[in-house]
Structures are given as C-alpha cells and as structure tokens.
C-alpha cells in the first residue's frame, strides 16, 4: 500500500512540476511588454514542443545516422555495419523475414478486412460482428503474444494437448507440432498474430468507406444486371480505392516497425527475427549500438517511401475535395 502511495506521490509531483512550468510560461506570456508581446506569446506556446522535438527526436535521429557508421568502441568504420547486415547469414535472415512480413500482413489483413466489411454490410447484428473482429486492435501486442502462444502451445504426442491448434492436428490424426520453433514456417505463425490484430483496423476503415458509396450507384449497377461479384469489382473496389490504399500503406508501416510480437513470442530466436527486433537486440542486448543504429536507419529508409506516398495521396484527396 505504501508502495502505491509513493507512486501516487511521484505522479502528483510530476503533474505539479508540469503545471508549474506551463503556469510560468502563461505568466511570462501575459506580462510581456506590449511592444514584443506577440512574439513572446508565440515563442512561449511553441517552444516547449519544439525544444522537446529538437532535443528528443531530430538531434537523436541525426546522431543515430552517424552512430551507424561506428563500431562497438565508437570508432568510425564507414559502411561496415551495412556490409555486415547484407552479408552475414543471420542478418540476412532478419531482412528476409521482414520482407515476408511486409508482403503478407498488409495483403492478407486488408483482403480479409475488406471481405468481412462487405459480408457484414447491413447484415443483422453488424455492430456486434464488427466489435468482435475489431477487438484485437485494443489488445497490446504483448497480450496478443500470450493469447497466441497459448493457441500454439505444444505437448508431446502422448499427452493431452492444451493448445487449440495442436489439438486440431491431433483430431485429424496428425502429430502435434512445435509451431514457434520449426523454421522457416514459424515466421508465418508469428505473422498470423499481426494479421489477427490488423484485420480489424482494415475492416473498420473500409466498412466506413463502403457506407460512403451512394446507394444510387449500387442500385444502378444492380438494375444493369451486375452480379454480386461484378458489383464488388466494378463498383465497390474503384469507389473505395483511396481508403484501400491508406489502409494498405498504414498496415505496411506498422508491419515494418513490428517489434513486440517477435520480442515476446520468440525473442527473435529460431530464425524469426525482424529488423525492429534485431535493432533492439544489437543496440541494447549485444552491446553493438553501431549495428543497432544501422538497422534503425534501414528501417527508416524502408518506411520513408511508404509514408511519403501516403502523405501525397492524402493531400491529393484534400485538393479534390
């Protein structure tokens, strides 16, 4: 109990310090001499956020870029870390896995999410059906890791299975399987977790887009004798194309950065590592900040084109509107 009281005190002190800083800024801003008041006010409002961003994000990002050119002792080694990344077998496995992740997750999560959104559109119980598939979005990756490790749990063939997947294998007369240990397919079972989480996101956004399609268009297509499939490919898909691209790119970015799932389910062992996990392992576990920084930089370079594409698309939509 006193433990909790102490923590509460820490929070209260933290909030009080923060309030004091903000209060001080407001005081200074209000009392500034008339002549330069506007400038002081603007600076007072912007400075806290901008200073934090400069010190905590911009400068560190630049420093990381330099760090990627140094070795574990901080000596400059040129592109050695990148050479390591693209030649060492274990580092190559990491890159290969990341590519598999980034192809499969956006593709499958968006497809299933879209199919589901179409299936339940205006169906009875739509709200509840939506909530069920959307729920994993609220669950942490760590929690999802526990949930799925339990689904994949393994017991020897002579014992009762406690994992659902292995029980299903046994029911079909198969040997139980070490889903998370057997490379290379274990990566696929980790990917399934991410798909499970992201499908809900895709479904909600795409469902909202489908609801935005004017009923008149759908009705017209139907009167022209279009089948359900033709309606889907010729009316639904083209109309929601913008949202579809946003969904795919957003999931792509999230997948590139995926860390928690791999960290908690296999810790990147058994050939399941991905770039974001390897970055953490190298920088904070293996004492190789240079390699970690190089991996972070590669991550940045992979995310960059997707984000730029996404941002340009959003701007284009705004202009049309």
């Amino acid at each position, binding site marked *: 109990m006193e433990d909790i009281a102490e923590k509460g005190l820490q929070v209260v002190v933290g909030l009080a310090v923060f309030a004091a800083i903000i209060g001080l800024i407001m005081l200074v801003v209000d009392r500034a001499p008339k002549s330069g008041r506007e400038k002081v006010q603007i600076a007072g409002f912007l400075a806290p*956020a901008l200073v934090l961003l400069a010190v905590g994000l911009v400068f560190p990002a630049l420093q990381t870029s330099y760090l990627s050119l140094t070795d574990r002792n901080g000596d400059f080694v040129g592109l050695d870390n990148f050479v390591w990344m693209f030649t060492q077998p274990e580092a190559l496995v990491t890159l290969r896995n990341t590519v598999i992740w980034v192809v499969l997750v956006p593709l499958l999560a968006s497809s299933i999410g879209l199919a589901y959104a179409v299936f339940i559109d205006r169906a009875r119980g739509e709200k509840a059906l939506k909530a*069920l598939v959307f729920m994993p979005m609220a669950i942490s990756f760590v929690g999802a890791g526990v949930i799925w490790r339990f689904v994949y749990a393994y017991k020897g063939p002579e014992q009762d299975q406690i994992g*659902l997947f292995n029980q299903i294998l046994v029911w079909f007369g198969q040997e139980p399987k070490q889903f998370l240990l057997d490379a290379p397919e274990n990566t696929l079972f980790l990917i399934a977790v991410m798909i499970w989480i992201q499908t809900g996101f895709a479904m909600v956004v795409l469902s909202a887009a489908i609801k*935005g399609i004017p009923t008149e268009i759908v009705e017209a297509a139907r009167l022209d004798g279009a089948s359900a499939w033709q309606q889907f490919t010729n009316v639904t898909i083209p109309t929601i194309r913008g949202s579809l691209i946003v969904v795919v790119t957003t999931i792509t970015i999230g997948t590139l950065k995926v860390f928690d799932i791999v960290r908690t389910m296999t810790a990147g062992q058994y050939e399941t590592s991905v770039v974001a996990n390897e970055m953490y392992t190298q920088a904070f576990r293996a004492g190789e900040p240079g390699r970690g920084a190089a991996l972070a930089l590669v991550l940045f370079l992979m995310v960059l084109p997707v*984000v730029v594409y996404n941002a340009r698309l959003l701007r284009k939509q705004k202009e049309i509107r």
Partner: protein
Amino acid sequence: MSTVPLENTKPLLTDAGEDGPPERPALQKRVKQRLTSRTATAAAVIIAVIWTIPTFGLLVSSFRPEDNIKGNGWWNVITDRQFTLENYADVLSPGGSQSPNLLSYFVNSLAIVIPGTIFTLVLGSMAAYMFAWGRFRGKDGLFIFVFALQIVPLQMALIPLLQLFTQVLKFGDFQLLPSGTYAQLWVAHTIFGLPLAIFLLHNFIAEIPGEVIEAARVDGAGHGTIFWRIIIPLATPALASFGIFQFLWLWNDLLVALVFSGGGADVAPITQRLAEIQGSRGGEWQRLTAGAFVSIIVPLAVFFGLQRYFVRGLLAGGLKG
C-alpha cells in the same frame, strides 16, 4: 482518379445502425436483400468466430485451476466445470520476488500513461494553436517539418535519447530526469507522441471559426486567455479522441518501456512484466492467462466504453504506424 473523401468515412461503429439510415428505407431494404446473401453472412460468422476464439480460450483458461490448465485443453470445461479465482489472486498479490506481483506493475502502467497522455495533449494543443492561429514568418514550413517528423521511427531516437537522459542531463549527482522514476518515460512518450498530436489537433483547431477568436482579440484577450478560455473548450472532442488513442498506445507500449524503465517493480509497466514472465516462465499458463487478462482489461474497457471516440481517433490517425 476516384477517391473517397476521408471525412465521409466516419460513420462510426455505434452510429451505423443495424438497418441503415432511416430516410431511405424502401431502397435500402431492397438493396439489403440483394446484397446480404446467406453465404456471405455465414462466412462472416466463421471469420468472427475464428477471430474471437483465441481471446475466449484465454479468458476461460484464466479461471481454471492450475492443474487443469496444464493438464488438458480449455475446451474441456464443457464436461469439467471447475473454476477458480486463484490465478488472479496469485498474479496480483505482492508475494516474494518470484511472484508476478502484477498489481504493482498495473499501478506503474497508470502512473506512466496518465501523465504521459496529459503532457502530450497540453504541449501538443499549445503548439497546434499557434500553428493554426499565430502569425509569424516560416509558420507553414515549420509545421510541415513537424508533420514530417512522424516518418522518423522511434527506433531512430532510442540510443541517443537514453544517453542524453543518463549522461548529458546529469550535473554531478543531480539527474534532471532521474533513473528509477517515471520521469524518463513521461518525457520519452511525450516526445514521440507530439508530431501526431500537433498535426491532428492543428487540423481541428484550424477549423474553429475565426470570428470567435477575432472577437476575443478585439476585447483585448491575449493568446493565453484565448487558448484556455476558447480553444481548449471547443477542441474537447478532438482532445478526447486523440487522448484515448494516445492512452491506449502508451498502455500497450513495450519498446519504450524496455529502454527507459530499468525493468523493476518500481517503474516498469505491466506489458514489460508480462513479457518477462513469458520469457522466463513461459509454461506457467495459470499465471500467463490471468496476467494477460489483467493487462488487457483496461484497453478493453476503454475500447467497449468509448468505441466511438476510439474509432474516430483511429480513422484520423491513419498515418501513425
């Protein structure tokens, strides 16, 4: 190119009634009959069941006695109805150093997330207000730069930021952000949350009618008064949406916690503890199942209680990965 205005994609889960908008019932009904075939509904139900079973199995298991969890699958509860709250008592109680002690970590999560969210909201909305209504040179360029910072994966900042906190911001024995407290996590989370916060809140605050602000100015109100008396009350919906989003994001975080918390019961959040238990005692399912549920109960409550805001935040935050 056909596009979907994203703003239209906002009929939220709770808004989209089961029977569609009431104003065009006849048309709606006919379309509905054509589009929702039995097979589609059946497929949807199958997907919903597959998506729900893993979580359901975990929930059921968390109430089963230890021997049962480890002995056979959770589906055996159909015939063997033994339930207990023992697992929850076990994971929550302080106990010895071996016990999960989750209550302590649960408190940590709250102590990290609440100030982390408040700081981000206050600093973010202050900057957003100036970007929307301040008049100064270079405003647009600076705003685009802040927006672009969303591209930088937080992995890029971790290594230097940790060095900054532990080595640079240290004056003799005095650490500005002491290790072993929440302070480092608050600041780190605030920094990483600011680019998206500023961007989203700016979009909302910029839509506030200019006459309201002009009128206050004419009456002699400074930026401080306008911000607290007019902007904050009017921006409450946006603050709520982003606040919930940020709250969940921080609650579910693992990476930032791993780097900045040190890992003890003093500071580390529940996600980190759960990941630890998974790593060291991955077969202790009676603890993992109950522990996972303790950790996801808050996000689930937020999700089911505030679904509308949650979805709105999600749709608006499409760029965040």
